[in-house]
């Protein structure tokens, strides 16, 4: 039988045991991409925004070019602090998972700039629709780490009342929407939220995040189509961290084109940004927010970054990619890059950095201790079991009252 397979199967750059190879990542020099007016005609700007890479920090850690957001040193310090807090929080929680204190965890190591810089570039009243790898949004918006920890612990102070897995936070007062286990569902929801803002004539905008793998889901297309038709004030972010569990970004269609290029297909800009460059992410987000606030419409942003750790505590990436891949990642570490920039500019020093880390480790530990006072899933104060039946509906219908009674009766036995 003469079989001539010609189905194309994407291949990641390297497998375990092979040398990392990121030559497929096209990188523009810092400062090389023009910054168009947010109202510019798509056809005049689409190509460079979607295909090149917006970068501000150059190889010497100097900010350069038209996208430099010219942030105050104080803001840089805040950004650095939030990124470090995110990282140290992640580290601690992963450790706690290893010790069996929480059931599951997902880190955002290497991607902290995306959440932190974007959140800083938006207004507190803007509505955020995160994925599970955006804990930096919570931290930057000022969420008490204790709240996040209590959620991961499903303890008596859990905002979700024990109903969601760890990291599936939400924060109504902080305008951060609930994280769903189902990928990409938040994308059209964010578009709808923004449509409502426009219908009501309110000024707030929405921003949503998905991974590049999740962009293959139907809801990506739904969000893009509705954004194309109604031009609502929304920012749609694809965090391209190269991996979706074990499959690399080629399995979402990233081999041929940047994900940012999807935007122009639908008639609005897609912007490709160095996701590990705090300043570039900030600047691009401001640009997109301006488009949204001025009623020009939606923007798609592709953040080029790298998932430095495992997908989750259930995953073992050494099975499918080289162990040292992160070291070869050409866009570096967002924390190191911002730190080095600040040091180069004279706003920061190694000593201050060490001190900040020490302070934050201490802070995370204190928060953890406090969180434990609200209990763990097995010890200490517990959620009321009756909560199991609350909030399915606004008012509990008869059949749930009956079921609650059945459970109570059993427990009483």
């Amino acid at each position: 039988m003469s079989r001539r397979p010609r189905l194309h199967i994407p291949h990641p750059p390297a497998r375990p045991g092979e040398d990392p190879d990121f030559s497929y990542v096209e990188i523009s020099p810092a400062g090389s991409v023009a910054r168009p007016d947010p109202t510019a005609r798509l056809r005049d700007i689409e190509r460079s925004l979607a295909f090149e890479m917006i970068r501000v920090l150059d190889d010497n850690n100097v900010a350069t070019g038209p996208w430099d957001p010219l942030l105050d040193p104080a803001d840089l310090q805040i950004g650095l602090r939030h990124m470090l807090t995110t990282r140290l929080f992640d580290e601690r929680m992963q450790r706690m998972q290893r010790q069996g204190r929480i059931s599951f965890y997902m880190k955002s190591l290497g991607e902290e700039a995306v959440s932190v810089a974007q959140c800083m570039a938006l207004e507190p009243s803007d509505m955020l629709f995160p994925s599970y790898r955006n804990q930096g949004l919570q931290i930057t918006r000022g969420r008490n780490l204790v709240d996040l920890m209590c959620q991961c612990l499903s303890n008596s102070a859990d905002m979700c009342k024990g109903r969601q897995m760890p990291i599936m936070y939400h924060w109504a007062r902080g305008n951060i929407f609930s994280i769903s286990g189902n990928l990409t569902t938040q994308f059209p929801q964010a578009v709808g939220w923004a449509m409502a803002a426009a219908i009501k004539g309110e000024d707030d905008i929405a921003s949503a995040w998905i991974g590049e793998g999740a962009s293959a889901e139907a809801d990506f297309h739904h969000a893009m189509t509705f954004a194309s038709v109604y031009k609502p004030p929304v920012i749609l972010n694809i965090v391209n961290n190269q991996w979706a569990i074990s499959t690399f970004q080629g399995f979402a269609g990233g081999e041929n084109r940047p994900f940012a290029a999807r935007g122009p297909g639908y008639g609005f800009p897609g912007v490709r940004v160095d996701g590990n460059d705090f300043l570039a992410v900030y600047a691009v987000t401001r640009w997109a927010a301006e488009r949204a606030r001025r009623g020009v419409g939606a923007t798609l942003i592709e953040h080029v970054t790298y998932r430095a750790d495992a997908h989750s505590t259930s995953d073992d990436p050494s099975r499918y990619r080289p162990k040292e891949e992160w070291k070869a990642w050409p866009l570096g570490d967002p924390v190191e890059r911002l730190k080095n920039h600040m040091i180069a500019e004279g706003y920061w020093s190694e000593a201050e950095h060490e001190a900040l880390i020490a302070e934050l480790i201490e802070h995370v530990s204190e928060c953890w201790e406090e969180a434990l006072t609200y209990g763990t899933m097995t010890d200490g104060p517990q959620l009321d079991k009756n909560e199991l039946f609350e909030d399915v509906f606004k008012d509990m219908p008869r059949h749930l009252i009956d079921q609650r009674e059945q459970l109570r009766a059993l427990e009483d036995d």
Partner: protein
Amino acid sequence: MAQMNMIQALNSAMNLMMARDPDVIIIGQDVGYFGGVFRATDGLQRQYGEHRVIDAPIAEGGIVGSAIGMGVNGLRPIVEIQFADYIYPGYDQLASELAKLRYRTAGDFFSPLTIRTPCGGGIRGGQTHSQSPEGIFTHVAGLKVVMPSNPYDAKGMLITAIEDDDPVIFFEPKRIYNGPFDGDPDKPAVPWSSHPKGEVPEEYYTIPLGRAEITREGSDLTVLCYGTMVHVCEAAAKAAEVDAEIVDLRSMVPLDVDTIRSSVEKTGRCVIAHEATRFSGFGAELAATVQEECFYSLEAPILRVTGWDTPYPHAFEWEYFPGQARLIAAFEKVLEAA
């Protein structure tokens, strides 16, 4: 009081609610300028503007998903899915998101959607314009699921659904949009104007979700049904000269178990009717509940009269449809028994 058919009653409910509450909006395919393929939203865009009655892309998942977001942002969207057969592309957003949002956020977020969708057969619609998929929504915790059987209920229940902070899947039996239907396609069509439930107040009123209505009292057997089947069951009981108590459930979730229980305790016999396929249809839940609640009153097995376990065929529509003959056979069997 006015005479209204079911479409007019639904239109009246939406019109009233849009006038009362600026947060009520409508989104769906062809609902705007055109007024909907069944004309349920006729005139509403002219009256309330194109920012409140919104023509949508042909993407049911996107319609539901974006409407969820609108609801989270304080609006009270009414979604029209053009045919219930086309609700499946929205199933993930409905079952995974809409239904569970309040629960997963411990009440901090919710989205008060009403999803209207025409269902049921009898219009030569073939397998993709005739389905009754209510069963697969009743299994999802967090959704209310209802189906009115007449214009009066349709208006009152739709107003309640729109005001309800929980999501409501509102099934509209399209076969009876224009008039009650006794199951005989060869008879001349009967308009709602000749039916007491075609009398519909112009003004605001509500009908609570979760309350069944006994449309005919009787003592020989209980018939549990909803939507189009209410009228078919009534006609069959009449034709068979059976003193049936006909319970129009109106709401599947929440279910009015009290009314069901007291009827079956009285009659001791029960027939369940729906158009959806039989296997794992909503009739299964009804039968399971009735035998559990009324076991010691039952004098015969509970029988289900439903669509067959096949897709809804174009040519054999009336062989498929659970019409009077099948109902009468079930009535006889259940009365004969024991």
